C-alpha cells in the first residue's frame, strides 16, 4: 500500500507549487541563511502552519502570533534539521510546541477536551449535512470539542494530509498511539456531527 504524502494538499495553500523532492535543496539554502530560501519556505508552508494553529488555538490573533513565532524559531534553528527531507513534520512539530505552550500559558491542557459548545443550533437533514456553510460550522464546532492534542493528530491526517509516520514525529508519539488517537478522534467527531446534524451520510 502506497501511503505517502499528498503534495496536492499543500499546493492548494501555497503561492507557488514546490515538489517535495525540492525541499532538501531549499533547506540547504536556508542553512546558509539565504533570504530567498527563508521567503520561499515561509510562502510555501505558512498557510498550512497557520491553518493548523488557527485550529489548535481557536483564536485568530493568537494563531498569527504563533505562526510568527514558529517561523522565527524555525529559521534560527534551521541547522538542527537532521533530515532535510523532513521539513514539513519539523515545521509542524515546532508549530505544535508553540501552540501547546500558548495553551498551557492560558491554563488549558492540550489533552483535556473542551466543554461542549452550547451554541449549536442546526437541525439539518442528512443530505444537508454534507454541504453548505452550516455543515462547515458544525464541523468546526465538532472539532472544537476534541482535546487539542487529539484534534491536532486528526487534523494532521485529515487536513494536512500527513502520513501516520510523520504525524508520530510531529506529535512525539509512537505510531501505535497516533493510530489509536486518530481512530478515537474520528469516532468522537462523527458522534459530535451525528448528534448535531442528524443521521450520518
Amino acid at each position: 500500500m502506497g501511503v505517502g504524502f499528498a503534495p496536492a494538499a499543500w499546493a492548494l495553500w501555497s503561492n507557488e507549487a514546490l515538489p517535495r523532492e525540492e525541499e532538501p535543496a531549499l533547506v540547504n539554502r536556508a542553512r546558509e541563511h539565504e533570504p530567498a530560501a527563508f521567503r520561499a519556505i515561509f510562502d510555501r508552508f505558512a498557510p498550512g502552519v497557520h491553518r493548523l494553529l488557527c485550529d489548535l488555538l481557536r483564536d485568530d490573533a493568537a494563531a498569527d502570533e504563533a505562526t510568527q513565532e514558529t517561523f522565527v524559531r524555525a529559521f534560527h534553528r534551521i541547522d538542527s534539521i537532521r533530515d532535510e527531507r523532513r521539513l514539513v513534520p519539523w515545521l509542524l512539530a515546532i508549530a505544535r510546541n508553540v501552540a501547546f505552550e500558548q495553551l498551557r500559558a492560558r491554563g488549558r491542557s492540550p489533552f483535556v477536551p473542551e466543554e461542549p459548545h452550547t451554541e449549536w443550533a442546526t437541525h439539518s437533514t442528512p443530505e444537508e449535512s454534507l454541504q453548505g456553510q452550516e455543515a462547515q460550522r458544525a464541523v468546526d464546532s465538532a472539532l472544537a470539542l476534541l482535546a487539542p492534542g487529539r484534534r491536532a493528530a486528526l487534523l494532521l491526517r485529515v487536513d494536512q494530509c500527513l502520513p501516520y509516520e510523520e504525524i508520530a514525529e510531529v506529535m512525539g508519539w509512537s505510531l501505535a498511539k497516533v493510530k489509536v488517537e486518530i481512530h478515537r478522534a474520528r469516532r468522537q467527531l462523527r458522534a459530535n456531527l451525528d448528534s448535531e446534524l442528524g443521521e450520518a451520510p
Partner: protein
Amino acid sequence: MTCDDARLEALAYGELDPQEAAVERAHASHCARCRRELQWLRAERHLVHGRPLRAVPPAVRRRVEARWPEPRRRGGRWLAPLAVAAAFALAVALSLHPRISATAAECPRGDVNQTSVSLEEAGFGACLVATPADATYATSSL
C-alpha cells in the same frame, strides 16, 4: 477479502495505486460496513479539508522577515571558526615569545630618548627597543 480500515482510508485519501484501489473499491461495493466507512472517510475529509482557508496576514510575514537571521557569507560557516582559531594561535605564540611579551615597564633601556620610547611602547603594550648587552634582556631571551 477481509475488511481493512487502513486500506479504506488509503483509498479515500488517494494513496493506493490503481490496482490496489480497484480491489478495495470492489470489496467496498459488496460490504455494507466498508461502504459506510468509506462514505464517512470521504465526507469528513471533504468537510474538514474543504473549510475556507484564512490567509496569513502580511504583517506576520513582515515581522518574521524582520527577525530572520543575517545571511551567512559564502564559506562563512567555516571561515568564522578558522579566524577565531588563527587569532587564538597568534595570541598564544605572542605570549610565549619573551621578546615580544616583555612589557614596556620591564623593557631595558639604551641611549635613546626614554620618554618618547616609553610612550610608544605603552601604545603597543610591548617592548620596542632593547639593548642586547642589558642583563635583563639577555636572561629573558634565553
